[in-house]
């Protein structure tokens, strides 16, 4: 039991810092974005499990030889007012920290969900008034903005893809199709659920390297996945050209990036820590284009299988350490 908590702590630290740093520098995710996406999800999940698990196991060490026995004993103490003399100060401290971290993660997940839903609802209300339906497809609307902009706003049956006048004017029909397929893929593959989970993960533990790296990686993986679907029907040259036109038409400088002539954009949520967001998405665009320009073959079957096996192992390890009685103690 004692060694279990140390092993879990080592695993938690490895998944919080060196592993995500190495993975974020690796080149293979661009070759098999789906596999990489699974690995990032596993790292987040196993990382969270082992963080909470390490503290739980340490705290329960005096009263049970595995997690279930320990929790049962703890429940007995709490519910029947049994003496807690077996638990020292640090045990109780670890148990409280585990409970607080769990509550914090769940609460942040829910809060992020609520915030995202509220912003989407407001956005949709404004779109209902400002945008007009497009001839290019159901659930596609056009907004009168001069710079080339395309995005999708998820929301179940009310999901909508938004294109700007500037975009329609700048793109050839095939390029527009590529953009629409790309955006539609985000909706059909439910990428917003991933965005939500990783935004919450980062919001909950912003100082942990893994949460920022994971969010940036997931943002770029979903773009690659959507590009790959667009490439099934449209040519590579078409997609690259569409990306180039949209990117060169919407410079990232905060000043004067909109062709409105309207002085001063209303500030929403000013002062959010947004410094890294811009560079992250710039890297995304760069890696998207370079992987289209010089395509690499997807990872060999065997390697992908190895990554999947690693994912399973990463999830099984903390679970086994927690549940198997007396495995290491």
């Amino acid at each position: 039991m004692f060694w279990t908590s140390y092993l879990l702590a080592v695993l938690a630290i490895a998944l919080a810092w060196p592993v995500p740093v190495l993975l974020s520098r690796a080149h293979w995710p661009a070759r098999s974005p789906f596999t990489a996406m699974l690995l990032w999800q596993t790292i987040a999940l196993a990382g969270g499990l082992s963080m909470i698990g390490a503290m739980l196991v340490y705290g329960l060490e005096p009263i049970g030889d595995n997690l279930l026995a320990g929790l049962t004993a703890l429940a007995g103490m709490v519910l029947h007012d049994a003496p807690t003399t077996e638990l020292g100060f640090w045990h109780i401290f670890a148990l409280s920290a585990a409970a607080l971290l769990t509550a914090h993660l769940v609460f942040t997940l829910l809060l992020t969900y609520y915030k995202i839903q509220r912003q989407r609802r407001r956005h949709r209300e404004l779109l209902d008034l400002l945008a007009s339906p497009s001839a290019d497809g159901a659930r596609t609307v056009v907004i009168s903005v001069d710079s080339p902009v395309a995005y999708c706003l998820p929301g179940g049956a009310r999901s909508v893809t938004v294109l700007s006048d500037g975009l329609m004017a700048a793109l050839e029909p095939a390029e527009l199709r590529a953009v629409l397929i790309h955006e539609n893929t985000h909706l059909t593959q439910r990428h917003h659920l991933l965005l939500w989970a990783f935004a919450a993960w980062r919001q909950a533990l912003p100082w942990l390297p893994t949460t920022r790296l994971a969010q940036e990686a997931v943002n770029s993986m979903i773009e690659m996945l959507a590009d790959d679907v667009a490439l099934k029907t449209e040519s590579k040259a078409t997609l690259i050209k569409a990306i180039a036109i949209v990117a060169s038409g919407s410079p990232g400088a905060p000043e004067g990036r909109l062709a409105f002539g309207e002085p001063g954009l209303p500030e929403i949520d000013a002062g959010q820590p947004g410094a890294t967001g811009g560079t992250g998405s710039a890297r995304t665009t760069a890696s998207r284009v370079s992987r289209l320009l010089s395509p690499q073959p997807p990872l060999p079957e065997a390697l992908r299988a190895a990554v999947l096996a690693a994912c399973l192992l990463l999830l099984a390890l903390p679970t086994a350490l927690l549940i198997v009685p007396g495995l290491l103690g």
Partner: protein
Amino acid sequence: MASLGELERAVMDLLWAGQEAATANTLRDLLAQSTLRQDGTPGHQGKDLAVTTVLTVLSRLERKGLVERERGTRPHRYQAVSSRADHTAELMHEVLGSAPDREAVLARFIGSVTDTEAETLRKLLGNS
């Protein structure tokens, strides 16, 4: 009868186009006219449209923070809180903004790019 959503849109269009605050009665008349102008005959929307419906639409818009009414006068006079361009700018600000917690709200085709990136892409565009 037009749906509430369509009416909200029509009312906002009128308020954005108009120079000053308008009462529900004025808006009702304007809505009736605009139906007439579109298809040449007095549209049923104009005939059926009750002032209470316009008031319902206005209170929905007020709840959404899109219109405000002048409290002193009776009947109440309504006006748009911000211009159409301001609201469009608000949307684009949200689309182009890069705060991490906002990145999950919607998925852009292209995120913001740096100047050097844009330059590289422009070159690419010239060659293709």
